[in-house]
C-alpha cells in the first residue's frame, strides 16, 4: 500500500493549477462552469430531486390503493401519477443518475485532469434539467402525461389523447435522448482517450468498464426511441399516420421500437449498478474482485444480449408463437452473464476480509433482492407464464426487485461510499444503518406482497379495485411498506444534509480503497490531481509504488490535458482544453425554447432554429488567441 509520496507539489504550483482550472466568479461563472465535478454534483443532486418527486407520486398511488374503492385520487389524476412516476424514475432518475455519477467519477478514476468535451457535458446537463422542469411544470398545470410511461398508441395518439399531455411526454423523451446521447459520447471519449498513462484496457476499474459498456448501449438503443417518439410527435402534431391502423399505420410498430430501446434501457440502469457493486465489494472485502476478465466479458455479454429481449414485453400480442420462443430463450440466457458476476462476487466475499460499513450493507442487500428479482425474471421470460402475470402486480414486483435491488441499493451504497470524496466528510454510520434497515424492510414489505397480488389477478395501472376479490390485505401491507421506504429516504436526506456540516472529516482515502479517485484530496482540487498519476497495475493504490509515479510536464498556467492511446494508454499528445463558457447554457435555453415551442406549433421547428444557431455559432466561434495558444502547446510528449 502506498502512502502519498513525500514529493508533494509546491504550494505555488498547486495555487497556479487551482487558478488555471477555476470557474469565473459570480452567478455567470457558475452557469459557465464546465468542471466535471461541479456538473457531476449538480447532476447527482438534480437526479435525486427527481427521485424524491417520483417517490412522492408513488406514495400517493399507494395511499389511493391502500383500501378498495378508495376515493382519494380519481382516475384522471391517477393516470398522470403512474405515468409521471414511471417517466420520472426511468428517464429523469435512474438513467441520468448513473451518468451523473460517471460524470463525477470516471475522470477521477481514470486519473484525468478533467472530462472530454466539457462544454458538451455542461450542455447535456442543462438540457436534462430543463426537460425535467418542463415535464414537472406541465404536471403542476394539470397537463401531465397520462398515457403511461410506455405511451402505447393508439391511446397516446391524437384521437384518444387530445390536448397537450402526451406531447409533453414525447418532448421529454427528446430532451432526455439528447442529453443521454451526449453524455454517452462524453463518457466513451473520456474512457478511451484520457486515461492515465499505463492504465491499459485490462487495468480499467470495473466501474469504469460498466459505464463504458452502458454508454455504448445508450448509443445503440436511444435512436430507436428517438425514431418512435418523433413518429408520435408527427402523428400528433402534423397528422402523419405512422401508428394509425386506419390509414395503413401500425399500432404494434410503436411497441417494437419502444421496447427495442426500452429493454436495453433496463440494462442502462442495471449495468452501472453492477459497476457500483464491484467497486464496493472490492474495497470492503479488502481484495480485488475475483475474475476480472470474466466480469468484463459478462458486462459486454449482458449488453449484447439485452438487445435481443424486447419481444418479451409483447408476448400477449399476436406475434408468431415460434418467434416468441426465441425471445424466451434469449431472456433466460441473459441470466448467465449476471449469474457469472454474482458467483464471482460470492467468491470475492468468501476469500476476502469483510468490513461491514453502510456502503457494504447496501451492496450485500443486492444479493437477496436482485437474485429474487432475477428468479421472477426467468418466470416472465416463459411465454405461457407471462401470459398470466403480464401487466399484473407480479410484474410491478419483479421490476422493482430488479431495478431497486439491482440499481438503487448499490446506488445508495455508492452515495455513502463516494460522499466523502465529494464533500470531504463522511456520512453518519449510525444513521446509515437505520437508513439501510428501514429501506430493506420497507422495500420487501412493499413489493413482496405484489407477487401474490399479481397471481391473484390484480392488474396494473388500475386506480381502484373492488372489495372482496381478496386483494385488500396485501394492498394495505404494501402501502405500509411504502411509508417505511419514505421514512428511510427521509433519513438518507437528513444524513446527507447533516453530514455536509458535521460529518467526520474524511481525508483522501477514508476506506483505503484502490482506485485513483482516492489518490487525490477530498473534495478533489479543481484540476483533479496536483500531479496526474501514472498507473502500473489494476489496483494502483494497493500496489507498491513504482516509478514514474506522476505525469510531468503538463502546463500549470494553461488548461492542458494528456491524451493517451485507446488500448495501452500510452501518452499520445498534450491537448489544449476549453475554457468555461456561458454558451452551453444559452444553447440549452435556446434548444428548450425550440423543443417546448414545437409542442404548440410545428413552425417552432423553423423559427426556433434561429436562436439555437446563434447560440451554437457563438459557442464554436474560433478565438484566434486561444487557437494560437493551443497550437503552441499541443505536441507529442517527450
Amino acid at each position, binding site marked *: 500500500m502506498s502512502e502519498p509520496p513525500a514529493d508533494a507539489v509546491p504550494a505555488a504550483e498547486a495555487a497556479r493549477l487551482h487558478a488555471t482550472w477555476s470557474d469565473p466568479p459570480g452567478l455567470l461563472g457558475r452557469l459557465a462552469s464546465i468542471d466535471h465535478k461541479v456538473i457531476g454534483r449538480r447532476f447527482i443532486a438534480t437526479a435525486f430531486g427527481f427521485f424524491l418527486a417520483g417517490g412522492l407520486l408513488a406514495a400517493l398511488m399507494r395511499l389511493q390503493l391502500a383500501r378498495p374503492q378508495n376515493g382519494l385520487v380519481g*382516475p384522471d389524476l391517477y393516470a398522470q401519477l403512474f405515468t409521471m412516476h414511471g417517466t420520472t424514475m426511468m428517464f429523469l432518475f435512474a438513467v441520468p443518475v448513473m451518468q451523473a455519477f460517471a460524470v463525477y467519477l470516471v475522470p477521477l478514476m481514470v486519473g484525468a485532469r478533467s472530462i472530454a468535451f466539457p462544454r458538451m457535458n455542461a450542455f447535456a446537463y442543462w438540457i436534462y434539467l430543463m426537460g425535467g422542469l418542463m415535464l414537472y411544470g406541465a404536471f403542476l398545470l394539470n397537463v401531465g402525461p397520462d398515457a403511461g410511461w410506455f405511451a402505447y398508441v*393508439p391511446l397516446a395518439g391524437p384521437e*384518444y389523447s387530445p390536448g397537450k399531455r402526451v406531447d409533453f411526454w414525447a418532448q421529454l423523451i427528446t430532451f432526455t435522448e439528447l442529453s443521454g446521447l451526449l453524455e454517452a459520447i462524453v463518457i466513451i471519449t473520456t474512457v478511451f482517450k484520457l486515461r492515465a498513462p499505463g492504465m491499459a484496457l485490462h487495468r480499467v476499474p470495473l466501474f469504469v468498464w460498466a459505464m463504458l459498456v452502458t454508454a455504448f448501449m445508450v448509443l445503440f438503443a436511444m435512436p430507436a426511441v428517438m425514431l418512435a417518439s418523433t413518429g408520435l410527435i408527427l402523428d400528433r402534431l402534423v397528422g402523419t399516420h405512422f401508428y394509425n391502423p386506419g390509414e395503413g399505420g401500425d399500432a404494434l410498430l410503436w411497441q417494437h421500437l419502444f421496447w427495442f430501446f426500452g429493454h436495453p434501457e433496463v440494462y442502462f440502469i442495471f449495468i452501472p449498478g453492477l459497476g457500483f457493486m464491484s467497486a464496493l465489494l472490492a474495497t470492503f472485502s479488502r481484495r480485488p474482485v475475483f475474475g476480472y476478465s470474466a466480469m468484463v466479458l459478462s458486462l459486454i455479454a449482458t449488453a449484447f444480449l439485452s438487445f435481443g429481449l424486447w419481444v418479451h414485453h409483447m408476448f400477449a400480442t399476436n406475434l408468431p408463437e415460434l418467434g416468441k*420462443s426465441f425471445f424466451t430463450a434469449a431472456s433466460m440466457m441473459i441470466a448467465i452473464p449476471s449469474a457469472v458476476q454474482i458467483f464471482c462476487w460470492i*467468491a470475492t466475499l468468501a476469500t476476502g476480509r469483510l468490513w461491514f460499513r453502510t456502503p457494504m450493507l447496501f451492496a450485500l442487500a443486492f444479493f437477496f433482492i436482485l437474485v429474487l428479482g432475477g428468479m421472477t425474471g426467468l418466470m416472465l421470460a416463459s411465454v*405461457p407464464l407471462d401470459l398470466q402475470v403480464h*401487466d399484473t402486480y407480479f410484474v410491478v414486483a419483479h421490476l422493482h426487485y430488479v431495478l431497486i435491488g439491482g440499481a438503487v441499493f448499490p446506488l445508495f451504497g455508492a452515495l455513502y461510499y463516494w460522499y466523502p470524496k465529494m464533500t470531504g466528510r463522511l456520512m453518519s454510520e449510525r444513521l446509515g444503518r437505520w437508513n439501510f434497515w428501514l429501506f430493506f424492510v420497507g422495500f420487501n414489505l412493499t413489493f413482496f406482497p405484489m407477487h401474490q397480488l399479481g*397471481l391473484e389477478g390484480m392488474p396494473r395501472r388500475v386506480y381502484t379495485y373492488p*372489495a372482496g376479490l381478496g386483494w385488500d390485505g396485501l394492498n394495505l401491507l404494501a402501502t405500509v411498506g411504502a411509508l417505511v421506504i419514505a421514512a428511510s429516504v427521509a433519513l438518507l436526506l437528513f444524513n446527507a444534509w447533516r453530514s455536509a456540516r458535521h460529518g467526520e472529516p474524511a481525508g483522501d482515502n477514508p476506506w*483505503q480503497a484502490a482506485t485513483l479517485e482516492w489518490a487525490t484530496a477530498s473534495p478533489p482540487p479543481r484540476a483533479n490531481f496536483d500531479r496526474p498519476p501514472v498507473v502500473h497495475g489494476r489496483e494502483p493504490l494497493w500496489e507498491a509504488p513504482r516509478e514514474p509515479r506522476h505525469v510531468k510536464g503538463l502546463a500549470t498556467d494553461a488548461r492542458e490535458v494528456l491524451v493517451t492511446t485507446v488500448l495501452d494508454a500510452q501518452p499520445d499528445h498534450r491537448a489544449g482544453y476549453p475554457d468555461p463558457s456561458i454558451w452551453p447554457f444559452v444553447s440549452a435555453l435556446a434548444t428548450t425554447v425550440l423543443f417546448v415551442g414545437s409542442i404548440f406549433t410545428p413552425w417552432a421547428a423553423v423559427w426556433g432554429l434561429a436562436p439555437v444557431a446563434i447560440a451554437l455559432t457563438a459557442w464554436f466561434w474560433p478565438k484566434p488567441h486561444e487557437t494560437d495558444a493551443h497550437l503552441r502547446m499541443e505536441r507529442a510528449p517527450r
Partner: protein
Amino acid sequence: MATRIRPLQRRPHARGPEPRTFAAAALAALVLGLLPLAAVAAPPFGAGSQDALRTGGPQAALILDLWRLLLAVCGVVFAAVMAAFGVALWRARRGTRDTPPELQGPLRGEPRSARLVAAATGASAVGLCGLIVASVLTDRALARLPLSNALHVELTAHQWWWQARYDDADPSRTFETANELHLPAGRPVLLTLHADDVIHSFWVPNLSGKKDLIPGRTATLALRADVPGRYRGQCAEFCGLQHAGMALEVVVEPDAAYAAWAERQRRPAEPPTDPQAQRGQRLFLAGTCAMCHAIQGTDAAARRAPDLTHLAGRARLAAGTVPNGRAQLAAWIADPAAFKPGTNMPGHRYAPEDLDALVAYLETLR
C-alpha cells in the same frame, strides 16, 4: 335482497341510492310481485373469482403447473445462491479499514474459486435450458387444445366495455351481448379478438392467459372452461380513464343451461305489456338512448354502446362495475360518471316518473 356490493369508485358527492333505499326498493319489488327480478341480482364476486391460482379449465391449469415447476426450480436455485452467499459471509475473515488488501491470491490465480464459479455457471446454464424446454412444452400443450365442436365468439373491446357476438353456421342464430360471456362447461371456445379504439387485453385468469386486442389486427384465443361458476375477467392493458372499470363476467354453466341462455339471447325483445313500461319504451326510442344502444325487435339499432336486448338478464351493469337492479339502474342512467368517472355515457336528467318508466321498460328486457 340487498347485495352488499358497492359501485366502483363512487364520488362522495354523487347521490347514489343508499343501501337502505336499495333494500326498500327491493322490498317494494317483492311486494309488487316482481319476484323473478330478485333472482337476477348478482352474487358478489368472492376471493378467487379472478385468480390465476384457482383454475377452471385446462389452459389455466397447464400454466399453473408450469408456475409450480418454475416456483420449485427457482426456489431451489434462490435458496442455493443464498446459502452460498450466507456461507461466504459467515466463514470469511473480518477486516477493517487497516486490513492490508489481499493481492497475492488474485495475482497467483485462484483455481478453487475458478472451479466453483465455472461449475455454478455450468449448472445455471443447464437449469436454464431445462426451463426453456418446460416453457416450450407448455406452450405446445396450450396450442393443442382440441377445438372440434368449438363455440365461436367474436369479442370486441371498446373504451370501456366488451361486445360479444356468438357466431353460428346459421346466420339467423348468431346473437350479440355485452360485458357477460356465458360458456358451456367442457366445450372449447375459440375467441376472435378485435379492438375498436385503443389496445385492450382479454384476461380471465381462472381460465386462460391473456391476449391483447389491438386495433387493426385480429387475434384468436382458444380456451375451455370445465368448472361451472362465475369468473371475473378484466382488461389487462391500460386503455384510458376507466381501465379499472372494464370487467368481463364469465358464467360457465352446464350445457343445458347454456343452451337455454343462448336460446333466450337469440329472441328479440318482447314488446312491453305494462303501460308504464310501454311509456318507457317510447322514451327510450324517442330520446337519446337509441342513439347509442340497440334493442333487437325495436327500431333501436345503434352500435356505439352495449346491446340492451337482454339487459335485465345480466348480473351487472357498466362492464362489471354496478350490480344490476332497479335502483342501481336508475342511478346509473341519471349519472353514470358517479360510478365510472370518464365513461362515454352521458348523464340524463329525467323527471322521476320518466326515469321510473324507463327503468320499468329496461327491466322487461330479460
